[in-house]
């Protein structure tokens, strides 16, 4: 058994992105060895076969290649999960301004965001990140790993650039949240 095969075995049974550190612990290998095995595996899968190795939401996961999407969709008949424009607006503001309260969201959007926040919570794309220490202690919201997964991002650093004038994404901090 080579490290590549052992890593492939773990990835085959994993139903969520598996961090290299977690796999290294399970396989009694160093993180470097696992990273090296992942690189080799990624190249091997890229060359042939319907499976690819992708890095998503802080971990590695096997997925089918884009070329097979039509066949698989016909087989699985997945439900459409595309977000409406209003939901995408709410999600984008939360992603760039997190942690953020509903009130602050509404200041930016100019309309009520209650429905959008509730819908995104149900889809597990956002979650509560604490409460702002201001009168009323409003709930702070931020994005989840599911958000990264759904938008094929490794982490929040992969967020696309926004127009000039918008402040840069703040460093994640727990100072405001409790």
């Amino acid at each position: 058994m080579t490290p590549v095969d052992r890593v492939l075995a773990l990835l085959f049974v994993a139903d969520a992105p598996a961090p290299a550190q977690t796999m290294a612990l399970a396989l009694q290998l160093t993180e470097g060895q696992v990273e090296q095995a992942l690189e080799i595996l990624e190249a091997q899968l890229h060359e042939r076969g319907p499976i690819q190795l992708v890095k998503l939401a802080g971990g590695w996961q096997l997925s089918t290649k884009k070329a097979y999407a039509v066949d698989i969709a016909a087989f699985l008949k997945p439900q459409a999960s595309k977000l409406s424009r209003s939901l995408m607006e709410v999600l984008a503001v939360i992603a760039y301004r997190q942690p953020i309260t509903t009130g602050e969201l509404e200041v930016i959007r100019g309309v009520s965001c209650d429905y959008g926040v509730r819908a995104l919570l149900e889809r597990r794309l956002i979650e509560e990140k604490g409460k702002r220490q201001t009168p009323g202690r409003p709930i702070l919201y931020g994005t989840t790993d599911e958000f990264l997964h759904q938008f094929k991002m490794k982490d929040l650093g992969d967020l696309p650039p926004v127009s000039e004038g918008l402040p840069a994404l703040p460093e994640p901090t727990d100072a405001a949240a409790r």
Partner: protein
Amino acid sequence: MAPRSETLESLDRPSHSVTALGVVAPPPIHISTPVFDGSLAMLFSCVRDHRVDLLDIPLAPVCEAYFHYLLNLPDADFDEAAAALAALAYLLERKAWLLLPQEEPEPDMYEDSYEPEPSSIGDFAMAMEVLTAWQEERSEWFFRSPDAGPGTYELPYQLANVSALDLSRAFQRVLDRALPQEMPLLSKPRRSLNEEMQVVLDRLSGEWQSLTCVFGDSATRTDCVYWFLALLELVRQGDAEVKLLDEEPVFARNQAPKAKVVFD
């Protein structure tokens, strides 16, 4: 700190004076700490008026001084003692409340003067387009579902040529062989005095023996009570005899036949 109760002489003062605690003043138990030095009544008054921080004053020695006052002054006035007890109770309650964790006060103003940066939703237009495109691309990848695979009860199983009827018959045979379950008694079994009399009578012989010998070493307290009553009844009925031997009652079985009582 050195709390102490005053001597009896110091208690010679006008009683039933009107104080902060009411008509009767508490006894002059003296309290001395770095932050307070004075009587119990004065401490009560200062704490009530928020002139002393009660957290700085240990109350255990004050309570000890109170007990000392109670124990060493047998002629103490009950009204004074009650007044002191009321003052101590007040202080203990106030201190207990002070020691409870304080609820975090609701912030009445922004702690870090946070205000959202002015921006409009238009600033996010480009990012939204990219995110939408990424979501579409991602929707063409398929992953192993978290709930993929059959559930535990959907897994196929093999019973070879064993049918459900075979299993049922085998189970019935086991049930037929099983021992009946012992039903626990709901209450203590009632012991009959007649039965206990027979037990004691069997233990008695023609020779005189003490009560200890009759009952033996393995008798429980309940046995002893039953057997003693049974022995008394045997003596009363004439089946057993009793006499004192070296100031120790000894018992023996009555060998002589009992006289029959005949009613005409």
